[in-house]
């Protein structure tokens, strides 16, 4: 379940903050792995990773690799972008429902026309100064 990786020659337009808690996620993404947290008490998985389980509020958590395949629930292409993203607009964004039961939102990297419910997989975008989780369509 190694993530396909795309390399970009620029710095991240709007880099995320890395915390002591989320560092395992970012480090894994750099190695081509998608990790998130699962509650040891109620087994609920959540993304983004969270210091307390949103369901039962337990802090007894595991880092797990929940899988990278899913379906595109919805998508858009942003033409009117914030200042730091103007140079890369238009760009596609989407909501992905992973087969493991997690829903997340991320960039969709593709040249093709997108449609709801098409199969997608998570990928990573490697900037000079960090990483970005994204997704791309795959053959069904």
């Amino acid at each position, binding site marked *: 379940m190694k993530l396909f990786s795309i390399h970009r020659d620029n710095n991240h337009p709007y880099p*995320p*903050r890395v915390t002591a808690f989320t560092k395992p996620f970012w480090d894994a993404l750099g190695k081509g792995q998608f990790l998130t947290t699962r509650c040891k008490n109620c087994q609920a998985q959540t993304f983004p990773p969270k210091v307390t389980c949103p369901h039962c509020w337990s802090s007894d958590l595991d880092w797990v690799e929940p899988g990278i395949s899913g379906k595109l629930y919805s998508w858009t292409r942003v033409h009117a972008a914030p200042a*730091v993203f103007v140079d890369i607009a238009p760009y596609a964004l989407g909501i992905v429902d992973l087969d493991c039961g997690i829903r997340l939102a991320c960039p969709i990297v593709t040249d093709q026309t997108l449609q709801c419910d098409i199969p997608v997989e998570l990928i990573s975008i490697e900037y000079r100064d960090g990483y970005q989780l994204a997704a791309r369509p795959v053959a069904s």
Partner: protein
Amino acid sequence: MANRVALIGASAIPVGKHQTQEEDSIQVVEHEIMAKVVRDAMAEAGVTKEEIQSAIFTTPRPYTKQYYFHTFLTSHLKLRCTGNVMEVMGNGMTGSLAFDQAANEILLGRAKVSLALGINMESATAAYRHMMTSMRTTGDVDFHSPAGFTPISWYAMDATRYMHEHGATREDLAAVAVKNRYHASLNPLAQYRKHIDIESVIAQRPIVEPLGLYDVPPRGDGAVCLVLASEEVARSLGKPYVLLRGRGFYHEGLHQIDDAPNDMISFQAAAKASAAAYESAKLTPDDMDIAEFYAPCTIVEILVSEALGLVKRGHGAKAARAGETTLGNRIPISTSGGLTSRGHPALVTSLYNYVEILEQLRGTAGDRQVKNARLGITTGELGNYNAALIHIFEGMQ
């Protein structure tokens, strides 16, 4: 009997581009606008300055130079209050929260007359700069903003999904923009009043696909003051007023997106909050004569009309296209012109919606008056409609 709250007067400036550029030699400043709006609202209400016991302000944009605006204006107007004087902030819900809190001051017996008021100035800041702030209000700043999500990108994804599930077309969505522009053409407070048609909506440049320029709200400035009073005070004035009949709130514990699949376009917060509001008013969706929504995009108006039970699920776009929500027809929605044409000075937008409700339900809406309108409903929201605050009103002649 418990206190009941009435809306007895209002004043507002036309929504538009009022904010000056930093380099302009003559500046437009917020307190000079606001002081006159308060005076005009009070004159319309017919109560005196000394009767105001509470003033709930919407928080100004960070571009407003005078910080701590509410207490500054209270000094400018020498308002001496025993109820709360405060600013509220809740993004798109800000205006609704100000109204709700001003009503609470009366319900709690702290005030017989209270104000809900505010000014939103932002048009001199270009959209791409403004979005550097607004993108931090939606989603997670470390997991969503770095991807370039903007507030309306979430609504765009609602539109994509809705079109996929219900077979709605861009033309169906465009019908909402066309209808709102027609309503705005009859509203002196509206920012854009020239007629448009479906073809011209489709022809606009894309903003967040599938939504184009006329599907999304324009940028604008606005200022509003509402005067609320106990029903006893309202009745003593001997003229029509608008009574707050019902109220409902729901936050679904989400910020833009759930971490597990759900039906994102069912707008659960609007559905649950409106159910609570209907229940508290002992009324049903069928009783409503008008509806004034917080609906920043064409798709949002469609989804809210369904969530509030005014239109059947999956039929919102078709109903708009068929004219059911146009003035003169079954359930007129956004008779002010809505956020797409009346305008969207976001933090005071909902205050403009109460102005429209007041005009319609006391019968002073002029050319856009809905005949015999007696009951109306308003909405305010957060996130991707993850929270909703709903009010129901009745006109008392």
